[in-house]
């Protein structure tokens, strides 16, 4: 029976683990894909702009008319100046394929076919669609360029082309190099000829992915062939592969570029290790810990508890992040009160003695509140590390309660709370840590003050028997809902509701209070009615 339970549990937990890994991997890939898509879109827009600029130039009479070479050259030079920096080598080609005019005058009269067949392709295409060249390297330069020519029409008649070069180095830095993919990933830009247009290690630039030496680099060996096929077809997707034993994932986003059925792709490669790290960060260690717990136990119940723990632990990371955000907000609030009050006093806005006293008292109390939050945080962190220890001594319960309420008298007065304290006249003593017990009581009373609206009532009732002392703090606040009441003593519990509903509170106070009471061998209970208020009761054994 027990064995069967373990098996069922293991099956369930491995399901959870698989599901978790799968979900985290998917979400990681999705994030990186969004990034790759953005890069592709930026590049695609740049190319479209380039094409649009050329199309506009093609409509200019000075450019259309290539009979006057000098005039045409002047115009092209002028256009180059206003054109974007990544443009270069503007040239006008006549319908026979010869450079008619060009900013690079040495080209004039030469056959454009010498510089790649792309211009010839445009001329021969019955529809004269714009064409993009393969990448070329300028003699003596490091940078690569891609040529683009668009048709020029005089009326209905095809009158050759106008085009220029797009310098890659000008925007590869801005759009490809600067984007970070995962921890060790990078982006490559390729075209549908399998040419590498950009690679972070620059010596790879200009190489062809279908080169035998490059293909051999990848496992499985058909990785690149498949990728090039996908890009030629204009498809986007992902693939798994490895390079020299390092597993990687690839994401490719293909986008349309000027020219007939031409595509480029942003290919992002990320070491699989990065994903493993992301899964780790998201809490897979907790899953493994729970698995270990299951192995070492033979109780069916643990299956259930283990599953619940996994879910809980997975939430801890998110809670910690929320915690920082909420705590800094919580600390800022009293700090703001101190700043405003002191500001009013310093700037001389407050002159009346009574007002001066009130602003000072309120600043002092806010400072106390701030210190209390800090104390709670430090104590919880000690508690988590197993370093919160009690320094017991003889404590007078009534004194502790009086001291605590004294700390809040200014707020109680401002909020016009009716405070009622009922305590036996005879001193009640117990062996306890006075600082921590005071902190526990302070947390309860300050909550009562915080959540009770102005003119509400708060009552503190202390009573004892032979065995116990009971301290009950009752407020007339909004009360706690049935769903929340089971959660209020859990660490960080309030964070979520604080973030979602914007109700202040770090959720550390009650967690800490409960722990302190339990360390003293006592217990804490709560009863509450929505809209009517809550009562928190601490019961401590008298030794």
């Amino acid at each position, binding site marked *: 029976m027990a064995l069967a339970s373990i098996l069922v549990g293991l099956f369930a937990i491995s399901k959870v683990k698989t599901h978790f890994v799968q979900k985290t991997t998917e979400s990681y890939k999705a994030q990186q894909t969004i990034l790759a898509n953005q890069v592709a879109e930026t590049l695609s827009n740049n190319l479209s702009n380039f094409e649009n600029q050329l199309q506009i130039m093609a409509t200019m009479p000075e450019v259309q008319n290539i009979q006057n070479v000098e005039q045409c050259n002047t115009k092209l030079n002028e256009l180059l100046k206003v054109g974007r920096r990544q443009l270069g080598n503007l040239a006008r080609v006549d319908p026979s394929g010869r450079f008619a005019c060009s900013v690079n005058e040495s080209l004039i009269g030469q056959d454009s076919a010498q510089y790649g067949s792309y211009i010839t392709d445009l001329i021969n295409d019955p529809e004269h669609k714009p064409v993009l060249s393969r990448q070329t390297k300028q003699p003596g330069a490091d940078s690569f360029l891609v040529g683009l020519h668009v048709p020029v029409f005089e009326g209905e008649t095809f009158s050759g082309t106008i085009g220029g070069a797009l310098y890659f180095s000008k925007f590869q830095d801005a759009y490809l190099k600067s984007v970070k993919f995962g921890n060790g990933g990078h982006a490559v830009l390729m075209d549908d000829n399998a040419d590498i247009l950009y690679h972070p290690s620059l010596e790879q630039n200009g190489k062809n992915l279908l080169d035998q030496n490059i293909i051999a680099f990848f496992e499985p060996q058909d990785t690149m062939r498949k990728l090039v096929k996908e890009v030629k077809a204009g498809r986007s997707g992902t693939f798994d592969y490895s390079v020299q034993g390092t597993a990687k994932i690839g994401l490719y986003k293909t986008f349309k570029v000027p020219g007939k059925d031409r595509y480029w792709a942003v290919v992002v490669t990320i070491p699989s290790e990065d994903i493993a790290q992301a899964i780790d960060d998201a809490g897979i260690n907790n899953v493994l810990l729970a698995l270990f717990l299951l192995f070492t136990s033979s109780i069916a119940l643990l299956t259930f508890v283990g599953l619940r723990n996994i879910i809980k632990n997975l939430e801890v990371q998110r809670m910690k992040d929320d915690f920082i*955000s909420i705590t*800094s*907000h919580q600390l*800022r*609030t009293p*700090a*703001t*009160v101190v*700043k*405003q*009050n002191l*500001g*009013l006093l310093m*700037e001389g*806005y*407050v002159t009346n003695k009574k*007002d001066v006293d009130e*602003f000072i008292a*309120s600043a002092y*109390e*806010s400072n106390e509140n701030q210190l209390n939050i800090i104390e709670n945080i430090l104590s919880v962190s000690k508690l988590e590390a197993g370093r919160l220890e009690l320094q017991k001594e003889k404590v007078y319960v009534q004194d502790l309660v009086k001291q605590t309420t004294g700390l809040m008298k200014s*707020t109680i007065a*401002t*909020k016009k709370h009716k405070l009622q304290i009922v305590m036996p006249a005879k001193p009640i003593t117990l062996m306890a840590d006075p600082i921590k017990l005071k902190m526990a009581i302070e947390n309860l009373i300050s909550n009562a003050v915080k*959540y009770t*609206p*102005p003119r509400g009532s708060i009552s503190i009732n202390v009573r004892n028997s032979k065995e116990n002392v009971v301290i009950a703090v009752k407020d007339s606040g*909004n009360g706690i809902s049935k769903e929340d009441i089971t959660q209020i003593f859990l660490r960080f519990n309030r964070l979520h509701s*604080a973030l979602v*509903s*914007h*109700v*202040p509170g770090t959720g550390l106070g009650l967690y800490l209070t409960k722990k302190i009471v339990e360390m003293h061998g006592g217990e804490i209970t709560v009863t509450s009615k929505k809209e009517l208020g809550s009562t928190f009761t601490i019961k401590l054994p008298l030794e």
Partner: protein
Amino acid sequence: MAKVLIIEDELSLAIAYSFLLRHEGHKVVVAHDGEEGLTKAAKAAADLIIVDMMMPRLDGLGFLRQYMPLKKPGVKILILSNMASRTYEKEAIELGANRYEIKAQLSPPQLLKIVNELLNTK
């Protein structure tokens, strides 16, 4: 002299802000959460409403969502929050708030300057 509605759940802050604005000669009405803020905004005919973000019952964004469709032209909204969050700021501005300020960063004179700027813009 203008009428200012302060919606702020931290009583000590509401008191400090009221004191400052009254000292400047403004009329001040205080509400302690978004719901009370809605009621008082309907009655008060305020020129400026100062709204906190994190409040019980109805928070600052909730207040803006319900109040903005009813807002009279010319009423200025100043968000004073300690939530230094771009998301909240963006959402508040999109909902129609005129300014979003982190209250811990404002001294009384700085706050007055902002209030006066808002009251003096049409």
